[in-house]
């Protein structure tokens, strides 16, 4: 089972057309291994990308070097998935089949 420990989801907000163009090409930069959750729509609209831990620092440096503002939307994707899984398990326990 594939797990996502240390994967972060970054929310990047392009400020101008130049930054918008840079973000449009993100998926093509294969070495970052990004998973674009919410793609580019326009200036001031957020773009969400999941970044694996081993490319996180390089990717953040890339964003900094292009003056791209970002915030961390999800600190650890696996923590959310564990919560989701736990929630499903406890919900299943509550609804036991009737005899």
């Amino acid at each position, binding site marked *: 089972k*594939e797990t996502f420990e240390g994967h972060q989801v970054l929310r990047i907000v392009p400020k101008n057309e130049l930054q918008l163009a840079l973000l*449009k090409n993100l998926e093509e930069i294969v070495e970052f291994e990004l*998973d674009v*959750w919410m793609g580019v729509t326009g200036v001031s609209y957020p773009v969400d990308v999941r970044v694996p831990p081993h490319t996180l620092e390089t990717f953040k440096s890339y964003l900094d070097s292009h003056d791209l503002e970002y915030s961390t*939307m*999800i600190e650890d994707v696996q923590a959310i998935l564990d*919560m989701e899984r736990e929630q*499903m398990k406890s*919900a299943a326990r509550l609804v036991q089949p009737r005899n």
Partner: protein
Amino acid sequence: TDSFDYANYHTLSEIYSFQDMLVAENPNLVSKIVIGQSYEGRPLNVLKFSTGGSNRPAIWIDTGIHSREWVTQASGLWFAKKIVTDYGKDSALTAILNNMDIFLEIATNPDGYYFTHTSNRMWRKTRKPNPGNSCYGVDPNRNWDAGFGLPGASTNPCSETYHGPSAHSESEVKSIVDFVKSHGNIKTFISIHSYSQMLLYPCGYTTTPVKDQAELHSLAEKAITDLASLYGTRYRYGSIINVIYQASGSTVDWTYEQGIKYSYTFELRDTGSYGFLLPAKQIIPTAEETWLALMALMDHTYKNPY
């Protein structure tokens, strides 16, 4: 289905069981049609809500074509129950169903959905292998024969937006294509995704406005206004290429080109914290508000026959 837990996410087998239960409980209103098989051999089930007549004008709704967007399948389950609950009580829905059929495909990409539960929660595509490449799957929302292969889809099988080797190469897509063509009387086609809060109409592959743009735009405005009336969730709306980005081979571009005027695609709500990993407590509010927009689209279709 009264005791079904609509406020939680469910496995594929639970969705299949739910569908059978709903049919068993409402034999005069709901039936199950199997329109094909997924790549891995799972049935592609469609619930048909019908009060009679043959080949009535119809409304199509699908959820979960991108498997990881779990809130869409969960909303689909809620919609199914809502239809049977409200028929005979809600005058607008009753009028629609007395004259039209509703088709609802809840698990549109069942292989992908199963995979999200068992192997990779982040899986979005189909599960067909790509010969000569180690990456699996095709983006089923880039696989339609509408601007297929143009910019706005990837040629790389490892990309999340890989368009596939040819239009309708995915059985999950081809089964809908065959169904829509053979039915021939579908008037509204709504494909539901998440997240980012948008209601979109064709086109995605060209900036040329579609013939019905003015009507589609004002109807979208009405639908998102109704949606927002419940919890204040704000949606953007417009054509795919103007509101999001160029996307070729997308579902509703194909359906519009088949003559289905009211072709829309939703991106459901985002709490701003989790993306498409919405906490289960968001399912019912999401479904409730979306239902208001669906009713606006369905009611308009019913009142504006073409």
